[in-house]
């Protein structure tokens, strides 16, 4: 247990130092996020689109694409000079590598969320009717889901020549069932009436806010545990 903690801590700190030095990931995440918000805000002025719903859509689209940028880089530094083997030679559980990388991705996406969410709230004039606590809860669960899936598949696709496109295909496909309750929960948090969602299938699939959050918790728990346990098979030759 002690070696697991030391391994996670060492890799987590090392990755943060590398990102602070290189400044590769976070600036591109923020620029991409702002671009998505700007384009969707412009589009939302056409016709009588629901501004609140567009804002929620802008948030999830920005989270997903910005997270992919960070996750694609997650194991890139380890491929250079065969550093991944340096990690695997050490007497630490391979799961520690996954958990450390997951933490880094959660932090990166968390910082991104802190920057983008207020921007979207202002740009789309969102009303935080569900309360700040609910917003934090949904964002955290969404962050965990996106990061846990992305971190695992990022390691899997590193050896591929087309890792960028392969990563997005795999991550989006796996996250699809999670996006319905996540979007529903955020719509409720921003005071969108469930009656306005008739015809989308979200109410029928999710039910209410509590069920949506329960689904997200289950998704996160299953995916993080399974990824942690399976990670050794993913990175070992």
């Amino acid at each position, binding site marked *: 247990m*002690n*070696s697991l903690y*030391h*391994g996670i*801590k*060492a*890799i987590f700190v*090392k990755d943060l*130092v*590398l990102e602070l*030095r*290189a400044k590769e990931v976070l600036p591109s995440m923020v620029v991409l996020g702002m671009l998505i918000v700007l384009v969707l805000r412009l589009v939302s002025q056409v016709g009588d689109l629901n501004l609140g719903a567009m804002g929620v859509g802008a948030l999830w689209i920005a989270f997903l694409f910005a997270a992919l940028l960070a996750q694609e880089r997650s194991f890139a*530094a380890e491929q*250079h*000079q*065969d*550093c991944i*083997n*340096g*990690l*695997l*030679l*050490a*007497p*630490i559980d391979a799961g520690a590598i996954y958990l450390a990388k997951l933490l880094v991705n959660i932090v990166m996406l968390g910082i991104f969320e802190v920057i983008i969410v207020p921007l979207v709230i202002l740009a789309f004039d969102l009303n935080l009717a569900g309360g700040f606590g609910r917003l934090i809860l949904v964002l955290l669960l969404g962050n965990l889901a996106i990061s846990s899936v992305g971190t695992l598949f990022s390691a899997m696709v590193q050896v591929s020549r087309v890792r960028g496109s392969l990563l997005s295909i795999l991550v989006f496909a796996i996250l699809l069932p999670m996006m319905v309750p996540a979007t529903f929960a955020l719509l409720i948090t921003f005071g969108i009436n469930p009656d306005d969602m008739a015809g989308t299938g979200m109410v029928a699939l999710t039910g209410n806010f509590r069920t949506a959050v329960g689904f997200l918790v289950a998704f996160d728990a299953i995916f993080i545990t399974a990824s942690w346990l399976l990670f050794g098979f993913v990175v*070992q*030759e």
Partner: protein
Amino acid sequence: MVSESQVQNKDEPALHIEGLSMRFETRRVLKQIDLQLPAGQSLCLCGANGAGKSTLLRIIAGLLHPSAGKVRVQGYDLREKPQEAKPLIGVISHKSMLYPELTVEENLTFTAQLYGVKDSRDRVKQLLHDTRLYGYRFDRTEILSRGMLQRLAICRALVHNPCILLADEPFTGLDLPSSQHLVAVLHKFHQAGGAIIMTTHDTHYGLECCERIAVLDQAELIFDAPVDQIDRIRFLDDYLTYARQNY
């Protein structure tokens, strides 16, 4: 560079390989390898490209799982007790396994943390002094020359005081002074009681650094003899023919 403390089971050989075979799909890469390396002995593994040298080293390092057979490091089964076996192994590879954006000191400290080295600051300082890299400790690894990078990679391999050092083609790309420095480091490690397995195409270095030579040919270990029992001139001339004739 190696302390006595890492030699835990003095009665056990540093390395014991038993019936080791490896297949990549239908291709057999290693066939029934049996090898024992006593503590403090150095072995040079020779063979043509594709003979299985690097695969054997990767299996001993725990990076590959063999199709059959067992590897024990000081009595610890590498598959069953990796937490005990892995800290006893140090690896020098073709690639440095160092992060270019981290400084010289940060790279070593990071590795020391992964291995749970106590007093890691002192250990890192001592290694940097030994390899004359102390003056570069705050420099990023990306600015180091090939020779300095190799010296740092050696520090990385030794930071946790292993009892066995695996060196895969360690002389590749090194100029003469860097190669001589590496020979000196290997001698020092050996004199301190560390066991070495080294692969090389340069049999001259193999004879200079090791007291035992083994030859891998088409996935099989066909030759294994102490250096002082080898006809050096014939061996240096064509080691593969020599090994096949003495099989």
